[in-house]
């Protein structure tokens, strides 16, 4: 059976909110939990020690825990945090940048490449498989055709590299050195007053015709529509996808996990849409269309 994973929390939540979220997640039917700050170096509600404690707690609850790393590495302080995460042999790490690949390889820690790592072909996977690749995420802009070819190529070359697919949530699409939340409030990034805390699901960026385009979330930009591949799970299973990634949201996540769990167990998906934060659904990338498109519903 395909595994379910909870990706790293891409938003900025208070320490207590994070602890409460994972206390609930410990009870959910997810197999893998990614923990850690993957977006902004200024988000330090949880210290590295807090993340390690949380990781051990969740491991004790039977979860497979992976420590996530920051996607855009800009400074020596960022590298120090990265080394701290990689200075252990209890957990695999999610490498979201080549800096993390380098440090993980040098420390001989198994790594999983995150969705922002550019894995577009089998030759790339071969390079990584030689050096400790445990699994890899399909880049969000690729769909079933490329995935099918990648999986076929891996089989032909007898490379054991399980694939994970981002299947539910707002898609992480871009990272900048600029903070768009601070920009919105006319604050300098270095003195942002941590306004992201007020937006636990990011801020909607709309066209002047009120079309939901993106969600701004600190230095990152996410899709304005919510990616939802629930109905594609049977096909993914046939293709040989190993893990389905769900991206955390503050509200209703238990219900999302429940439904994906039902579908992976072969139950017919419920047709009524999930009403969480109000956002249109999309699935275009899976079909090789613009990511914002909704195909077949």
């Amino acid at each position: 059976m395909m595994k379910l994973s909870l990706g790293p929390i891409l938003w900025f939540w208070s320490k207590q909110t994070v602890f409460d979220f994972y206390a609930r997640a410990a009870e959910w039917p997810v197999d893998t939990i990614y923990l850690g700050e993957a977006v902004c170096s200024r988000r330090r509600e949880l210290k590295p020690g807090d993340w390690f404690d949380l990781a051990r707690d969740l491991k004790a609850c039977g979860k497979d825990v992976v420590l996530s790393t920051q996607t855009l590495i800009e400074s020596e302080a960022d590298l120090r945090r990265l080394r701290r995460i990689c200075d252990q042999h209890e957990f695999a790490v999610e490498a979201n940048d080549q800096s993390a690949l380098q440090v993980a390889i040098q420390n001989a820690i198994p790594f999983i490449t995150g969705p922002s790592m550019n894995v577009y072909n089998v030759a790339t996977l071969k390079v990584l498989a030689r050096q400790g690749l445990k699994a890899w995420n399909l880049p969000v802009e690729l769909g079933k055709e490329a995935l099918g070819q990648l999986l076929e190529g891996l089989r032909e070359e007898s490379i054991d590299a399980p694939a994970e697919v981002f299947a539910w949530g707002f898609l992480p699409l871009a990272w900048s050195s600029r903070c768009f939340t601070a920009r919105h409030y006319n604050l300098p990034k270095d003195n942002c007053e941590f306004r992201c805390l007020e937006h636990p699901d990011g801020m909607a960026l709309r066209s002047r015709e009120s079309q939901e385009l993106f969600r701004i979330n600190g230095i990152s930009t996410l899709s304005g529509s919510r990616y939802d591949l629930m109905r594609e799970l049977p096909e993914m299973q046939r293709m040989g996808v190993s893990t389905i990634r769900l991206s955390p949201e503050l509200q209703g996540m238990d219900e999302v996990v429940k439904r994906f769990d039902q579908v992976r167990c072969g139950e017919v998906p419920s047709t009524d849409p999930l009403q969480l934060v109000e956002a249109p659904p999309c699935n275009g990338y899976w079909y090789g269309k613009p990511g914002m498109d909704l195909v077949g519903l």
Partner: protein
Amino acid sequence: MELVCPAGSLPALKTAVDNGANAIYFGFRDSTNARQFAGLNFNDKRAAEGIEYAHARGARVFTAINTYPQPEGWSQWKSAVDRAASLGVDAIILADMGLLDYAANKYPEIPRHLSVQGSATSYEALSFYKDNFDIRRAVLPRVLSLDQVRGVAKRSPVELEVFAFGSLCIMAEGRCYLSSYLTDESPNTRGACSPAKAVRWQETAQGLESRLNGVLIDRYGQGEAAGYPTLCKGRFEVEGDVYHAIEEPVSLNTLDLLPALRDLGIRAVKIEGRQRSPAYIAEVARTWRHALDNLEASNQAFAVEPQWQTTLAGLSEGGLTTLGAYHRKWK
């Protein structure tokens, strides 16, 4: 410091050489490079002519093969590397790890430069590329402040090239999927951002509208200068405010930083713009040549001449330039 100029055509290449470029970079006429535009770029015959022209005048030529091949494109991208090798280029600019691996094994003698699309923003990332593919040089993404560039440069295992002038990407390059989210093409997959095929202009009662795959990117009032609808430079609404929520239409210009970049040991400055005309390339190359020559001659007393800035501002998006992320406050 080396002046690296873009060429989207043979006339542009010759113009760049004639106006003082030390090196020129070009791409083939397909999606294997990050500036895929109709009618732009080189076939093998044109490339051979350009390389001969440049080499005869002491300039070097690099080929950019800096998009990410998917399985069905793998043989085409691989053959682009083979073509560049057989043309005798001085370096190949690559981003994809698979392709870097192929080039390093098959053509170890041809220098490999890491494209800005390889997203290397730290010396650890640079070490990864150096250890695995023995890259000689890397182009740094336009997201680092000058202090951060200093931190990278101090411990970089390879030569560094930085962007000097031209369009400003404000997202970490190589990891921006905004374009494929609104259209079906991105820099990574097709070498295109906000592709022209998806652009529509419409005169309406509310003003001139620019759209990308139907999405309203901007609307211009009377007398407002309209720009190409690059999706991150439009005006959008966030919590009731309509503004350039991501970035203004503006160009990067780092003339002021030249002495600092030299002191950091930066080996080359890069001009963006393979999509630009030969006339544009001529003016930009000439201006930067003057600046670099003055820098070399003047040692500590380098001063930016107002005329250079006027020329460059006139060639910029919206007539505006910025130091971008090099300047901490921009962030």
